[in-house]
């Protein structure tokens, strides 16, 4: 009789249960990014950059909502995910903002928006990677729906990363040399 390798119900269920904590991590990481984006988008004076960050915020909210579909694709209960915009995401966002502030002071910076933009760049990188890891789990467990959902998110957030980095670099001389 044929042998199933790692596809027995007990093994398979165990693998899916191991996915759940990472989905929760993704919720928190993306939630923290979205909150920081909300805080930053309206502080930036430069109109083009403010527009780009505003567009990014719309996408960030959509990506956060999509995580529910990922729970379903993995046959997990979305009711068990951390609340969107919940305490964990808020705490992570605040911790990153404080970190940016402290690092900024140490670096002699006075531009508050630019400091937040710098932290936002790191937060998007972290949440992009979180989604990228979800894609790997979908591939590893043979679930195309997960991949179909996540690949466009990772692509869009990778574009956002380029935008954030460019904005950060463009604003850097003014922030550092002129304190603006």
């Amino acid at each position, binding site marked *: 009789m044929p*042998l*199933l*390798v790692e*596809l027995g119900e007990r093994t398979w269920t165990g693998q899916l249960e191991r996915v759940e904590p990472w989905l929760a991590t993704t919720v928190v990481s993306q939630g923290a990014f979205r909150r920081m984006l909300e805080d930053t988008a309206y502080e930036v004076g430069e109109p083009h950059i403010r527009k780009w960050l505003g567009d990014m915020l719309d996408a960030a909210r959509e990506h956060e909502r999509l995580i529910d579909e990922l729970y379903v694709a993995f046959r997990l209960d979305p009711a068990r995910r951390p609340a969107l915009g919940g305490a964990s995401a808020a705490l992570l966002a605040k911790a990153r903002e404080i970190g940016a502030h402290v690092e900024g002071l140490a670096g002699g910076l006075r531009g508050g928006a630019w400091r937040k933009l710098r932290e936002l760049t790191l937060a998007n990188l972290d949440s992009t990677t979180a989604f990228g890891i979800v894609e790997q789990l979908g591939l*590893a467990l*043979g679930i195309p729906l997960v991949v179909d959902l996540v690949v466009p998110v990772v692509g869009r957030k990778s574009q956002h990363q380029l935008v954030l980095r460019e904005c950060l670099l463009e604003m850097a001389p003014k922030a550092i040399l002129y304190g603006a």
Partner: protein
Amino acid sequence: MTALPTVFAPPETLRRLPTPARPRVDPADVVVPDGYDVDVVLAGLSMPTGMGFADDGTLYVLEGGSTWPTRPYLPARILRLDPSGDLAAIGQEPLGGPRGVAVHGGYVYVAAKGGYHSRIVRYDRYTDERAVVVDGLPDGGWHEPGGPVFGPDGLMYFAQGSVSQNGVVLPQGYLVDLARHPEAHDVPGQDVVLTGNNVDTYDPTAPYPYLVRTGPFKPFGVGAQQGEVVKGALKCSTGVWRSHPDGSGMELLAWGVRNPYGMAFSEDGDLYVCDNDFEEYGDRAIANDPDRIWLIRNARTPHGSVATPDWYGFPDICGDGLPGWDDKHLPQRGRPAQRLLAEHPVWAGPPVFFEAPHSAMAKMDFCRSDAFGRRGRLFASEWGSLAPMNSPRPQDLDHGFRVIAVDVAHGTAESFVRNRHPGPASAQGTGGIERPVDCKFHPDGRSLYVLDFGVSQVDQSKQLSYGHTGVLWRITRR
């Protein structure tokens, strides 16, 4: 040794697997000639790449780890399936993972891709102790180590494919290789003189799209000069070698074989190696290059007697003997190729068998059994096309995805294991085969085992492979 979690699966379980990428596996959907039966031995393997039998019927199956594409990276395990049915992992190879296995004299010999260099390691069959016997085969790029197989002379024969896809390291190879192995490049098997033709492209790993110029046998971003001599090396890319089983006495038999993944000895002692065509995309694109099987003539010579290895065409000559810039090979997509070598060594072709482009010929085995039938035929697995990614031609979409039985004397073949319609089962919604990567005869001579890599989907811009979708099939004569 680590036992794996396995459960027995009656047919109804195989028709409702938990992996949506491959929800069912059904021997009834696999077509073989009259008089043969199909059944399933294992299901749920992750990226299997090769297998080999011991004389007692113990089967070693490789899970490739990081394969095609490089993600997802799952455990690169060497599995042992005892005749009793027990399955266990006897070892794991580092990143890159195992690609081919043969059992000889109390050892399990495994070719592994590695990082910058491929290697051959051997595991003691009784203690699982591991030792590296060959290392330093140029890699870090696109293609794979081939073999190992053992000849009637007791020597070990093995191979290594090209580092670049089409003769020059370019971004059309996976970007991770440019980032992880920036110094990777092809190495010729004998001294060559370059034309100085380079390929201009961009560097996707740079913060700006810097233009870069790259030549053959050079790392990405390093150009070649007209008249420049590149020294040949024993440990070249595109090479076929033999050595004693402990790796000593290594001798280069051939080079210029682009992707020698499958190797097999006939009953009368001839060595055959399969090879895959150039890709029709990117900045050095070549069209309509046939897949093929070569006879490696130097395998018939006494060990240690090869003064100059035979040359089989890479990086300039296609399987049909025409250069990559011939009208027949001009691409519909991508930039046409230019000549890279100022003078070509004597071409060792033609092949003994031509196959349709992009069939992706993989591992092979000769039938040595009257009980199975078709004795003397070379059974060759065909992983299947990567079109539309590597070819824009609709006719290339469903090449491969089967096992063929080749008559090497006449250059003909019959389709031996296939789906009802060309292409992978997942594209047809059936429980048939996906991508056969290896086929080996059981030592009892009654059954052909076919290792099926599993689901690997391709579109114009990407390739996605799914874990836990690999299957080991068995075809038995009634």
